[in-house]
């Protein structure tokens, strides 16, 4: 299995320089090769572990806990406008 680094980098939204693409690509191929040893371990009928404990049904009550963090959050935002966070124009309107 070889690592399709450009595709994965797009998916992860990380731009890579030519040099990084080379270096990380070869690192990751080596790591993948190492990881592939797991293929040799028989796991038929083994349940995957998502949690180390069999905890279940952890809820909270439907109660409002007013923690308005707007001002604190906006104070340090990279870019804001009045009470909003601001980002470059999102284009998803019709053509």
């Amino acid at each position, binding site marked *: 299995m070889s690592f399709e680094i450009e595709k994965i980098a797009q998916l992860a939204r990380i731009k890579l320089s030519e040099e990084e693409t080379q270096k990380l690509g070869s690192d990751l191929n080596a790591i993948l090769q190492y990881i592939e040893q797991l293929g040799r371990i028989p796991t038929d009928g083994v349940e995957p572990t998502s949690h180390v404990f069999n905890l279940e049904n952890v809820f909270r009550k439907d109660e409002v*806990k007013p923690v308005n963090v707007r001002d604190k959050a906006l104070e340090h935002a990279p*870019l804001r*406008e009045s*009470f909003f966070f601001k*980002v470059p*124009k999102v284009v998803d309107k*019709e*053509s």
Partner: protein
Amino acid sequence: MNQKYEAVIGLEVHVQLATQSKLFSGAPTHFGAEPNSNTTPICMGWPGTLPVLNEAALKLAIKAGLALNCRIAERLKFDRKHYFYPDLPKAYQISQYDMPVNGKGSLTIELEDEQGGLQIREIGITRAHLEEDAGKLLHEGIKDGSLVDYNRAGMPLLEIVSEPDIRTPAEAYAYLTALKAILQYLEVSDCNMEEGSLRCDANVSVRLIGETKFGTKTEIKNLNSFKAVQKAIQYEIDRQIEIVEGGDRVVQETRLWNDVKSQTFAMRSKEEAHDYRYFPDPDLVPFTIDRETVEEIQKSIPELPAARTQRFMKECGLSRYDASVLVGDKKLGDYFEAVIATGADSKLASNWIQSELLAILNERKIPIENSPVGADALAGLISLIQKNTISGKIAKDVLPMMFETGKTAEVIVKEKGLVQVTDTKLIEEVADRVLAANPKVVADFRAGKGQAVGFLVGQVMKETKGKANPKIVNEILTQKLS
């Protein structure tokens, strides 16, 4: 629509569950708050924060599932669905991938067919799962960017996915109407489309009748009303048939409905192949639903619209149409029941609510539950009609006065001296005057033009300023003319 084709339609409906706090945080859910004020560090996805499931949201989801005949999961989990977008604060949405709370179910819809008969169809529900909402982006009037408001982020949603069982825009409309009614009856959601607590996307494809394979589908978004859903689906069906007829292929894509232009448009932004990289959210534990909980929730389910319609038909003698209109909005049905609980005649009540009352409310954009003329007040007006204290015609004048003044019908009738004249002597005097003044009409009547009596009744009513009992007027005139 070209008769050779049929449409295959599936609907994805997102409803906001009626909880006080968000799905995984204690932020409030009320509509209309200042931007970014209904937030906690959790629903804003602040680094280090963790979700904890709101128990009420899960119970509401199960309640909806039961009412939609879904198989309720014994065990469920939450998964992360990854994509990057400014309105998605964690770059993943907590949703349910392969173990949704509600599995397969169904919803029965009723439609009038072309002959005016009743058609009943069952539409399959694929699943209905819990997930958190994203925030909201604002673009209007901002040249150099978009603004993000996270008030909606983390709101509890139930995504109800239908099977591709729907065949016509009218069925889609009926499906949405029925679904909305059920969810409102359950008090699972207020289903207010304007406030975004009900949203619908439609998947549409066309194929030749008899074909078993599906055609290429498009997904239509930006549907702001049930009418828009119906129109957009019709537009899309026509568009796709035209493409296929022209020998081209439909492109699988997301299209946006433009209500003003009444057209769908392909989204401008190039869509990448989605790879959501679902995996079980390690921050949330799995959940099990035991039978007792399901039974308890089952018991809390009230009478649903279908049953109520039947009851209104059977017990109140309403037509299916009238019953459906009253039942279609739970609060309207409740209002109707409150009126007839006072002893008011149910047909009269149904007519008065559906014609006069709703006309005024709609004109003033007041929802039924906020009607200044309450059920008791309307019942009072109806009782005056039933007792012949006033005529229906007078009553139509009294109702707006009730809206204006807030006074009861009885008080208004008394103050304005609108009590109906049932004194036959008085009516006879007026009738004589009218007959004397209209010899030509009387001659016409005698010559066999029966409808002439209507004119004469009208003249008597006019003379008595509408207060005469029309029935008595009619009797007296008929008697005098014969």
